[in-house]
């Protein structure tokens, strides 16, 4: 294969991975705080709808991205109120959020179906971007790609190197002990959930502002769920989320290229690849981690403070 095609494939893998990275690393923080928010898909699709609507109305992709973040946070706040404030079942609350999100996004985006806008411009640094092979890959992506990398780095640093990150992990590992030490378990968790919502919203915004760039109902196509699987696959470590997302991005791109090249396999089988890959990845991971789960100790358990 000639190097130009390889570069092109690598670029598409990175862009396909970016929404998974952003949503996945947000959910990673949420789960590290001991909360399982299954509503990623719902927050993402609302982010996609609101982000596109705002960008279309104002003509600014930046405002679109901010609106997507805000929309994701509002959704996350609803989840936080239920699952943290009222100690409701987290699995059920997350599912409710996804159902609500799919409906709300359909309502909010109704007037924007079929509308188109320009995708966000890619980075261009004279000289560097023109470098052969690596130029476009490293120096010619859209801003979200770089933001995704920076976000993972920031989260890795926050969790492992800061005091606040240590507190967040403590709350996630054992909420009763953290509470006994005087930590504000519910506040930490609520903030983590808001952060996860912001990330999921932005990831949705990336889909409708850059990746496709238009709005259609159901456009997240299970990416929120794949992001959730990525967190498990990554054993709750930020950089592994990135690595996992590249793998899934690869599966998506492989499927697109195979469909275009019509290699004789049914299109539906190729479309099923990312979902099959997710199941396979979870199985492989469980074989590797036979020694025991590395999930945060309090993951999914509601916390009700006693005195």
């Amino acid at each position, binding site marked *: 294969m000639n190097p130009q095609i390889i570069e092109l494939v690598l670029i598409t893998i990175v862009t396909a991975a970016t929404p998974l990275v952003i949503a996945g690393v947000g959910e990673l923080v949420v789960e590290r705080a001991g909360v399982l928010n299954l509503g990623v898909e*719902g927050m993402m699709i609302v982010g996609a709808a609101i982000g596109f609507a705002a960008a279309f109305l104002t003509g600014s992709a930046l405002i679109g991205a901010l609106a997507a973040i805000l929309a994701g946070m509002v959704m996350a706040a609803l989840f936080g109120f239920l699952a943290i404030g009222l100690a409701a079942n987290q699995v059920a609350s997350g599912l409710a959020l996804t159902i609500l999100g*799919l409906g709300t996004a359909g309502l909010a985006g109704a007037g924007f179906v079929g509308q188109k806008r320009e995708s966000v411009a890619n980075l261009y640094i004279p000289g560097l971007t023109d470098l052969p092979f690596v130029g476009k890959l490293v120096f010619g992506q859209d801003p979200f790609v770089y933001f995704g990398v920076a976000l993972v780095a920031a989260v890795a640093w926050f969790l492992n190197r800061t005091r606040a990150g240590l507190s967040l992990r403590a709350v996630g590992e054992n909420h009763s002990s953290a509470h006994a030490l005087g930590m504000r378990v519910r506040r930490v968790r609520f903030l983590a959930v808001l952060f996860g919502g912001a990330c999921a919203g932005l990831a949705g915004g990336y889909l409708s502002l850059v990746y496709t760039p238009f709005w259609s109902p159901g456009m997240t196509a299970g990416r929120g769920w794949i992001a959730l699987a990525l967190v*498990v696959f990554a054993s709750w470590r930020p950089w592994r989320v990135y690595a996992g997302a590249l793998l899934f991005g690869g599966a998506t791109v492989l499927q697109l290229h195979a469909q275009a090249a019509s290699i004789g396999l049914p299109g539906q*089988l190729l479309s099923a690849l990312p979902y099959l890959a997710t199941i396979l990845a*979870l199985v492989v991971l469980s074989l590797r981690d036979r020694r025991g789960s590395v999930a945060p100790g309090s993951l999914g358990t509601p916390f009700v403070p006693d*005195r």
Partner: protein
Amino acid sequence: MRIDLEPRQGRSRLIEITAPIIAVMAAMLIGGALVAALGKSPVQAFFVYFVNPLMESWSLQELAVKASPLVLIAVGLCFCFRANLWNIGAEGQFIMGGAMGGWIALLTQGGAGQGTFGSFWILPAMLIVGALAGMAYALIPALLRVWLGVSEILTSLMLVYIAQLFLDYMVRGPWRDPKGFNFPVSANFDAEATLPLLFDGGRLHAGVVIALVIAIVAAVVFSKSLFGYEVRLVGAAPRAARFAGFDDKKLTLTVFAISGALAGLAGICEVSGQIGQLQPSISPGYGFTAIIVAFLGRLSPIGIVLAGLVLALTYIGGESAQVLMKLPFFLTGAFQGILLMCVLAADVFTRYRIVAHFGKAA
């Protein structure tokens, strides 16, 4: 001031029954506000959604027809949810049940393969194959969980997408009606492969009876059998259940098998009784809506029958609201999400007392 949750000492029967009712009313208020925000009359929407469908015989029958798949799936799910296991892929099991059961109908089309037996066995075979297919599909996440500790939540959900694509492939390929002008649908089922109507000219088919009977059987199993006790105990107190010698792996497989079989049965009843052929999409999201039904019914089979009727109402009301008031299709989905949130919030009041502390907390 700070607000705290205090566990209730005993559980009050009154609160247990009123909580879902309050949740439905709260969801209606929020839904009404949403309709007003869309620039339509909430009062008219209330009548179109929740009153008019109850006024006529045909729409009442339609209600029962739409409620039965929801009830069947949700009754199965309540076994899983009670045991604290999360089968959220009932939609996929529903599709597999409909697809494989429907396959029997296609195989026996026009008297093929019937030999000297006649055709009386076709419908029972369809129902059994449908239930078995749903069961087998549900056992994939269950076995992965039991053997390898893989989260059943994610695998069961991923399998939904795969089932949808499988059915899509089959009706566009091997199962497509050769005389169907290339439309992606199978041939229409023969009369022998169609669930009979309960009375001529009506809408009710035998699937409604099946759903009702299953709900009653499940209610008895739940409250009267050792197995029902085991499910409840494992969910409420897993450590105690282990000390009592209950095998939680076997239980995991059993509840998944039950819920998968019921979802599959719902799928084939829908295909055989309602649609009459296989097509790319055979469910308007029944498998997900059934999750709401299960919670609104407070995870009890009888409650689920009532809750199934409420959610079926939102489907029928939603359809007429689209036609009569030009309200968007997605309003129904949004309302269902709001409803589940209200149900979960109301559930908190059955378990906790909300206490407000004034001044500085100790």
